[in-house]
């Protein structure tokens, strides 16, 4: 595939053609976030950790800076997912032709 990034080449317009060999040649990337072995397990752990299923039902618990701790736990897990996502995008989303 020609590198179309940072070039003045006009982009084509899809007209309904179906060359599946070309499709998969383009679609499969050497490096992408989902191919990192730690990416999905870490993501799932953070998602499960954000839900307070392991706490006692009906309890408020300690309050820290205005919120109960279980709410802060969820917020921190969300921050963890944001960091994971940003790392995945910035470090592991690479194109063969990516000049950056």
């Amino acid at each position: 595939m020609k590198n179309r990034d940072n070039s003045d080449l006009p982009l084509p317009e899809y007209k309904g053609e179906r060359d599946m060999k070309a499709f998969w040649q383009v679609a499969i990337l050497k490096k992408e976030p989902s191919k990192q072995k730690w990416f999905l397990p870490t993501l799932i752990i953070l998602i499960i950790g954000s839900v307070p299923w392991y706490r006692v039902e009906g309890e408020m618990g300690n309050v820290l800076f205005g919120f109960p701790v279980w709410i802060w736990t969820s917020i921190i897990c969300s921050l963890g997912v944001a960091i994971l996502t940003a790392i995945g995008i910035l470090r592991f989303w690479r194109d063969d032709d990516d000049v950056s």
Partner: protein
Amino acid sequence: MNDGTYELGIAPIIMLAIYLLVMIAIGWAGKVSSKENSLRDFYLGGSSFGIFVLFLTLFATQYSGNTMLGFAGRAYRQGGTYVVSIMFMVLTITVISIYGPRLFRLSRAFGYITPADYIYHRFGSHWLRVICVILLCWGLANYILEQLVAMGHAIEGLSGGRIDFMSGVVLLVIVMLIYETLGGMRSVAWTDAIQGILLFFGFSIILYIVLTVNGGLPAATELIASNQNQSEKLAVPGWEGIRAWFSTLLLLMFGASVYPHAIQRFFSARSLRTLRLSLAGLAFMPFITTMLAFVLGFIAISQFTDLSPFESDQVTLLMLLDIINGNDLIRWLVMVVFVALIAAIMSTTDSALLSIQSMVTKDIYAVYINPEASQQDLLRTGKIFGWVLIAFLVAMTWVSQQTESSIWLLIKLKLEFMVQISPVFLLGLFWQRLSGTSILCGVVVGTAITLVLWVGAALGYWDAGGRSPLGISAGVWGLAANYTICIVGGVFWPDGEFVRG
């Protein structure tokens, strides 16, 4: 609590008029800058957006009037458990980071204009393309409807009732149609950039209000904890609540990540680098947007009691009106928040409308109705369709005012169906064995199950807080069936192209 009477004079009307004139001027600038009369130029801005415009247009599109109004209202009704909103907004970007790399590369190589270009290219099924376009347009039309309702509330609030609900909706829609028709995606993205900046200001001011007014968050939590009727909103939920929590996460992370107007912004990026930087930044935006809406709704629990679901959707406005009679600085800040709110609503509405226009024109009209149409014909058809659709939706907005409906209900109807598209991207881009027939069966069965369960919940057949069986959303049940059919189909009846190698 404020009784709704306050005097801002004519200043907010002047501020609104200046904002709307700037939007029209930008629309004109977009038209002047257009390079050719083509679908790519009109619907994707010629795929030329750099980091500044791309980030702000993605930001302004993702965060709508619903974030400021609907999310805060939901936090008010639900309490602490609505902290889930922060996670699902982050996860939307995470899911995009999984399928986005492949879709972006394909879009550059083959020149996709709409998500359905990819769908037909990958699966070669006319039925699948049409059904996906219908589901996406259905979702987007509901999305626009929800924004129009928010427009009416916002303009009523900003003008202190001088401009009534429906006049406000019509005024904003006319301005939006003018700039969108003039320059298409280029105008929409440039206005989004201004609207995105206003949104940043708006949320910063809300942060200031949250931290300073009436003792801020700690005082609010103390008040809620001391009130027997409200203290359960601070408590850890039971198993029913936990199931609803996971259900909401699944519905939103898979549903909101396939919004076609967001996908089309990938296609508008000038380069991979600009797209990557924009998406990485967006992953952190929920902490200055969704989280603030959550905190605002949470604090409102301590200040307003017994608001109906309809009233609670306006809790942001009630909070602002409650402090508007403070000093002059606060009054001006509140006016800026109102304009930011209108900007947020307009930026999402115009993007969704443009996306519907592009799909109806490119994927339906140009393929099945008039294959010989020139680019000019297609552009004209898209614009006329957009005007007719928005006129219909404005009429629907008027109807919705006659029957009280919560904004959240409208969002649900949109996402429950739209989420059924997710395997098309999340399986279709990774699994060569998956055939068009399998995915078509999955999407149709998933949608049918969703519809049946949704109607059942609405009629009260399942006694789980208005939700489907076990308190899990109808769309999530449909999605489970959808993925199961796709996986079984892929394993036992692989794609013919894959078998031939």
